[in-house]
């Protein structure tokens, strides 16, 4: 058991769709579990990752907490992987980049339709929003990219088995898609 590959996963500004797709590897998960153990991940409830081999990041970076989590992963994962469209180019959350943040916050919390008790949330517990949603490669160094919205279960399987079996990961044409 000691030489199992440790994998951590997280979702930043994402929808957990990539995680759901990962789970779609279905019964192959059992096969994977023989070689892999999960560190920080929604699957385990471990809060902080430590000394991992692989970190899978879903979602782009939209707020300060995303930056902290991403940095924790970079620090603790030998191989860091951008998973899905949002991690790679900001994805759908990045479509707010067309609207200045000031307008977004004003609309949502101050003068939008149906806003009661208008105020910008200011609790120090809340992460602040970045002015733009960014792909994760603009914040930390990324080793591999798995495109797709979400990447299919086969993409996860192909990538992880390549890595586990010591091959340079590669995706055939059928597995490369951006949607």
């Amino acid at each position, binding site marked *: 058991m000691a030489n199992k590959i440790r994998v951590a996963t997280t979702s930043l500004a994402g929808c957990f769709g990539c995680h759901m797709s990962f789970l779609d590897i279905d019964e192959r998960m059992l096969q994977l579990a023989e070689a892999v153990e999960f560190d920080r991940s929604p699957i385990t409830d471990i809060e902080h990752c430590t000394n991992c081999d692989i970190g899978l990041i879903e979602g782009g970076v939209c707020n300060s907490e995303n930056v902290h989590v991403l940095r924790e992963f970079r620090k603790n994962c030998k191989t860091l992987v951008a998973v899905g*469209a949002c991690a790679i*180019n900001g994805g*759908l959350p990045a479509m707010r980049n067309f609207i200045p943040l000031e307008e977004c916050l004003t609309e949502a919390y101050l003068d939008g339709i149906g806003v009661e008790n208008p105020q910008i949330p200011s609790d120090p517990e809340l992460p602040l929003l970045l002015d*733009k949603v960014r*792909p994760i490669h603009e914040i930390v160094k990324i080793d591999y990219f798995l495109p797709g919205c979400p990447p299919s279960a086969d993409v996860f399987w192909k990538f992880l088995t390549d890595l586990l079996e010591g091959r340079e990961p590669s995706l055939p044409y*059928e597995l490369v*898609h*951006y949607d």
Partner: protein
Amino acid sequence: MSKTFTLDGKPIPFEDGQTIMQAATAAGVYIPHLCHHPEFTPHGSCKLCNVNVNGRNCSACTFPATEGQDVLSETTEINQDRQKITQMLFVEGNHFCPSCEKSGNCQLQGVAYHLNMLDNHFPHFYAERKMDASHPDVMIDHNRCIFCTLCVRASQQADSKDVFAISGRGINKHLIVNSESGQLKDSDIDAGDRAAHICPTGAILIKRTGYTVPIGQRIYDHKQIDQVSLETEHESHG
């Protein structure tokens, strides 16, 4: 004996006046391209079709074929550079495939798939670009424009109109519309125009036609762009 040049070591016959692209396509060899379309005057701007001719980089779509040329196209280095040029187009605009009606049928995406592009590599420009949904049938999403000028050429050469032009300089280039208001609704465009259908990306779209083809059956879901391109363009060049 017809004249020939070699493309990646293979002899390609050509006739005088043909470009490298025309001769290669006619011979069933694909060279990646975005701004080129066999029906319209070659433009030579996207630079995806750059090939090495006797040691010098040239655009295959505009460079004339000549006897004995030694042309390299499918080398690892050239394809890596093509991938980088494609990535430049992706970071210059705002290309969010999951929310684009053209996804699956988009040539920019198709070329990127073909080149096994997995990320955008460069820092994004976060360009502030607008949409023009003023016309009842045709819309422009400037976020996806790659300045290939196919709509400009199609409007002039196929539709005998002059609906589009590229304005501005350098990184500030943008597509403009020939109408008093600058909006598509006041232009001569018609949903049946060639110019409304020629866009290789999702920048010019026909309204109410999106997502009609299910995922898995779209153009580039299973067929690579080289195959699609040769099937559709071979005839015009042949």
